[in-house]
């Protein structure tokens, strides 16, 4: 397997003069406040390690003061790390001299900023072409790449405008275009949508998802909004006081928060958008097959206190639902095996990757629980109504933030 695009290990940053002493105290497990009291130095980030695979959207999530903005700047050495390593495609950034570091920043790592950080005296096109200008590319190449990037973010028609003529959402599109035009593998995004209105933020998240589907960059995305993290992130690193609290996929974090801090956050998350059918599915209590005996199935239904059952064909696809009343009538009329006449379409199905919000209206409507199917229509499992209610109500009461 190829090495990860980004490998971070033991990354630590101390702001202040007594760096070594602060590092030692941090190594002994002292908290940030205690270290500041003893040394006057601030432990911004401590011993953070993670890897990001090619094409992954990795989210770092934390409140203000959690060290996330420092962390993202350590990744391209805008801030010099105190300890630890950052490797990009196997190359240790801390071993590079200034010139080599500038080349890496120019060609391998691009950054998108919270407040856009555009040059106000340059046009949108000139802003988008900035990395190429720094690189010393010719005017034609600059224009071509910038125009491609602007078209990708849907802003080509405003290429000759100045940033102050654009709305916030448009400006961040320029920021994104500037990063895309550089054609670098790694994209660092420092709270890129936090300064935008909620509706615009939603648009930009859609745009990013679309771009990521097309371009598959390796992205480190910083946010303080867990809903955003859950929506965009393949994996999420929860940061608190400069330390990793939990690292996992969104559903993993929701269903098993590592501590009260994380639980606190997850209580505010819209679970219906995070949890998917796949997260909630379980083995069906029982299934039947075409040709099974009507009497056997009816007795099994009685034992399970159920009124209906999924009936599968030879390939495991759902042929229909057998209801107890229809099975009883079949027996009365002398039919012993389940055939097409015993089946009704009294059920619904959903794909495993769909979020709860898309199927919550379907659960509990039929005699059988909601069926989760793969692309071939085969039954993977079921989502009973109780499972949905259980997942959505699992809010730690004590953990709610004021």
């Amino acid at each position, binding site marked *: 397997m190829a090495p990860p695009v980004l490998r971070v290990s033991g990354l630590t940053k101390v702001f202040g003069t007594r760096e070594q002493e602060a590092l030692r105290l941090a190594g002994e497990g002292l908290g940030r406040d205690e270290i500041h009291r003893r040394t006057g130095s601030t432990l911004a980030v401590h011993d953070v390690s993670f890897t990001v695979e090619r094409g992954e959207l990795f989210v770092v999530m934390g409140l203000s003061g959690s060290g996330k903005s420092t962390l993202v700047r350590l990744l391209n050495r805008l801030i010099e790390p105190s300890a630890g390593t950052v490797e990009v495609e196997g190359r240790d950034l801390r071993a590079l001299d200034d010139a080599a570091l500038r080349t890496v920043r120019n*060609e391998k790592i691009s950054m998108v900023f919270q407040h856009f950080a555009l040059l106000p005296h340059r046009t949108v096109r000139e802003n988008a072409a*900035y*990395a190429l200008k720094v690189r010393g590319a010719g005017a034609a190449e600059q224009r071509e790449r910038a125009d491609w990037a602007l078209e990708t973010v849907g802003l080509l*028609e405003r290429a000759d405008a100045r940033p102050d003529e654009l709305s916030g959402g448009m400006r961040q599109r320029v920021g994104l275009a500037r990063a895309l035009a550089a054609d670098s593998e790694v994209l660092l995004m420092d709270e890129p949508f936090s300064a935008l209105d909620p509706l615009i933020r939603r648009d930009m998240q859609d745009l990013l998802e679309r771009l990521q589907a097309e371009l598959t960059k390796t992205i480190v995305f910083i946010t303080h909004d867990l809903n955003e993290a859950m929506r965009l992130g393949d994996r999420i690193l929860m940061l608190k006081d400069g330390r990793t609290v939990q690292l996992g996929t969104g559903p993993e974090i929701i269903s098993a928060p590592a501590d009260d801090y994380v639980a606190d956050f997850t209580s505010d998350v819209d679970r219906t958008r995070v949890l998917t059918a796949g997260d909630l599915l379980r083995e069906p209590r029982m299934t039947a097959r075409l040709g099974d005996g009507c009497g056997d199935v009816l007795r099994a239904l009685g034992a399970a206190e159920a009124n209906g059952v999924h009936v599968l064909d030879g390939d495991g696809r759902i042929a229909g639902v057998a209801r107890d009343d229809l099975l009883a009538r079949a027996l009365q009329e002398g039919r012993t095996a389940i055939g097409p006449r015993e089946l009704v379409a009294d059920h619904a199905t959903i794909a495993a990757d769909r979020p709860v919000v898309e199927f919550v209206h379907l659960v509990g409507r039929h005699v059988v629980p909601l069926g989760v199917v793969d692309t071939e229509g085969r039954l993977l499992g079921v989502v009973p109504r109780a499972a949905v209610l259980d997942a959505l109500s699992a809010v730690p009461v004590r953990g709610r933030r004021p």
Partner: protein
Amino acid sequence: MIPHLPLGQWVSDLIDWLLDTVPWLFDAISAVMQVLVDGLTDVLVSPPPVVWIVVFTVVALVLRGPWLALYTLLAFLLVVSLELWAETMQTLALVLVAAVIATAIGVPLGILAARRRAVSVAVRPVLDFMQTTPVFVYLIPAVFFFGVGVVPGVVATILFAIPPGVRLTELGIRQVDREVVEAAQAFGARPGQVLREVQLPLALPSIMAGVNQVIMLALSMVVTAGLLGAAGLGAVVVRAVTQLDVASGFEGGLAVVLLAIFLDRLTGAFGQRTALSRLLHLRRQTERQQRPAGGAEAGLASPGRLTAR
């Protein structure tokens, strides 16, 4: 008892030592200044006043618009009618030479101070000293180094006018949005590129406010320099004071004020949107709107973008 510290004696000794050791340096500086001021004075005084009045009026029109143009026309006509045209142009030459040199020293020093903390810390008390030392104290060493005449006046003026250039340049660069500087660095820009392409352009309004202050301070100093025998409005005012001639004192003073207002309004336009750039901007927008898919909602840019101080 605390013993007397002969600080003044040391400074005096230092000046003597400098005069003995590098006299050629002061001769060279003196010669260059003399040539610059004389040359510029010639250029300003030789043609008939109407030539320069037209030029000044047009410059005012282009940079600031019709009101300053009207003021410029009337003010300089008044100067001519007061028969102070030649003196006013001599003073203008002195101010321009001093301001250009003070800017050439002050702005780079301000850039350095913004980039190096040590420079900033070292320069600040020197600037405090330069700004608070009584004006006449500058004149004494100037006379020692350069004798009497226009050169010591220019040198004293330069020293007096440097501080705001340094301070406002440093302030302007420090106030540039940190994220924008970071963005340039994050895309691999060299320190020189960051300075040229980001810090200086964004600090321009503040730097220009500094240049404006340099010019105003230079103008306030050249009158004092009249004491040393520098020609111009300073000489007119000094002569009026020594002869208790209220009439010519008022006229000389008025000419200084008229010149000051002209220079202040004109240089206050630097770094802000001038009448010319507004015109160009408008044309750019019209062109864009005429193109088919162009931004129909382009709207006028906010004009209040660049206001420092």
